[in-house]
């Protein structure tokens, strides 16, 4: 036996996705304030579902702009759960923000009735787009910009309705995975009833995101983090312990849904084409 002392590196926690919530809060409230006020606005409009993503966006907007400058709209359908409404009320009461409730049943049911064969996905998309119409109308009425509520996990997976819930003027939480949304929500004081419940689009009774997706957010977050942030190849993800079928389905889902993440391509004809060689930030001149 050798008596040479052996030292090893300290144990490194593998791919810890937790964030410094104070720093995130500072950057994200600064972002909301800057991107709304520099265009001459001072107010924000948000759809408040009763879920964690829109609750977190509300807390950030209220801190950035002052609660009096935030209007939230609850937009239930007749099948929406009563709990969603009451959870949204917790946020409204806690922050002291302005609120209104606009039920969408009378708006979407006539369209559903025209197409009796309509499946749940089509109905869900119509509801999401109807809510977008109401939010953008309130944007004009309230002189506020629509603040988005989509997180990085759902944007990557394409778990959203194009021109529906994904429509917004700015998105403060789109670079946070679902687990990071939970961590930041806890730090900002989002009520635990909202943070701890199973995520749901609440488009029909009993719907949950994780049942729709076929895996948990924790699984998806960890895999997406390796693929996107750490630039692992799919083979390296499998080597890191993920099921090959799961990796393949997520990789394919991310690719297939890329159209939801970019502006529609314009066919190039001229020497200078919007999107290709006509390039300006939105903040141009401000």
């Amino acid at each position: 036996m050798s008596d040479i002392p052996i030292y090893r590196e300290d144990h490194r926690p593998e791919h810890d996705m937790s964030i410094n919530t104070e720093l995130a809060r500072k950057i994200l409230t600064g972002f909301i304030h800057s991107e709304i006020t520099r265009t001459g606005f001072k107010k924000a409009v948000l759809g408040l579902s009763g879920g964690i993503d829109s609750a977190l966006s509300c807390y950030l907007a209220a801190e950035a702009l002052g609660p009096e400058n935030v209007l939230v709209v609850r937009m239930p359908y007749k099948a929406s759960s009563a709990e969603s409404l009451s959870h949204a009320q917790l946020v409204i009461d806690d922050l002291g923000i302005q609120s209104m409730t606009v039920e969408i049943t009378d708006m979407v049911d006539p369209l559903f009735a025209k197409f009796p064969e309509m499946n749940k996905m089509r109905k869900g998309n119509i509801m999401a787009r109807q809510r977008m119409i109401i939010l953008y109308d309130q944007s004009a009425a309230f002189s506020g910009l629509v603040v988005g509520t989509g997180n990085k996990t759902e944007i990557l997976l394409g778990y959203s309705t194009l021109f529906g819930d994904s429509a917004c003027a700015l998105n403060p939480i789109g670079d946070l995975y679902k687990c990071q949304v939970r961590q930041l929500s806890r730090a900002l004081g989002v009520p635990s009833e909202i943070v701890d419940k199973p995520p749901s689009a609440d488009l029909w009774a009993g719907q949950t995101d994780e049942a729709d997706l076929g895996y948990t957010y924790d699984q998806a977050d960890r895999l997406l983090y390796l693929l996107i942030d750490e630039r692992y190849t799919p083979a390296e993800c499998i080597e890191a312990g993920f099921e090959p079928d799961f990796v393949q389905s997520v990789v394919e889902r991310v690719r297939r849904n890329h159209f939801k993440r970019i502006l529609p391509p314009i066919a190039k004809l001229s020497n200078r084409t919007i999107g290709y060689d006509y390039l300006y930030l939105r903040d141009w001149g401000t």
Partner: protein
Amino acid sequence: MKCNIALAQINTKLGRVEDNLEKHMDYIKAAQAQNADLIVFPELSLTGYVLQDLTPTVSHHPTADDPIFRPLLEASQKMDIMVGYVDEDIRNRFYIAAAYLSRGEVLHVHHKVYLPTYGLFDESRFFAWGDGVQAFDTPFGRMGMLICEDFWHASPPYLLWLDGADILLLQSASPGRGLGQAPELESAHWVDHINRAYASLFTDFVIHTNRVGFEDGLNFWGGASAYDPNGQRLVLGPKHEEALVMVEIDLNQLHRTRARMPMLRDERTALVQREMNRILNGKNCGTGR
């Protein structure tokens, strides 16, 4: 000799040079009230950072007949000024540039050599790269200027050191990225890390100013800092907020530190040149293998 330096970590308006000039003049006045000898502004402080197709519309010349530089040159009668702007040369190439103004004269212009064009960056799509790294004399000793990615490479600070710069003036428009558990972003940590290293390795003063604010989704983190030739941090500005950060440097510290740490005296420049020639003239030039 002492030099009282003001680090202006400002926000800018994208493409609005006159508005940005107005802010420069406000900060210059505030620095004068603090008896500053030199004020250092961030990268592209007169224009904003993600210029894209705005680039050709915001270029200026650091001459007395330029409407933007005239007031800056006048203000430099009382206090030295380092500003960031877009320079256009006589053949109409655009550069990310830094100018050092003193007593009504332009003492030096540096064109950014390393234009990051990867990840979120797209600089060499719009800008020409500078082709020189030179130190220059000022009333407060010999200095060198570098812009952001220039000092993410080790060679430009090294060249300035050999060219006689005792004070490295670094300016950035550094987009914040890499949020983990630490109280600062990875990009902020990284810059702080290397600036401390340059001060220590070169026994130089390292002065860094970075802008703040947002451009679309990008945040700029501020955190202006100064290191002395011992590698000790003299000041650290607030993160993500505008501020005029004041720091007095004692140039006699160069004497004291270099008496103890003679890295400059012992640097084998002929060896470096010989080995560089061997490496660059070798048959596997550039690959290192």
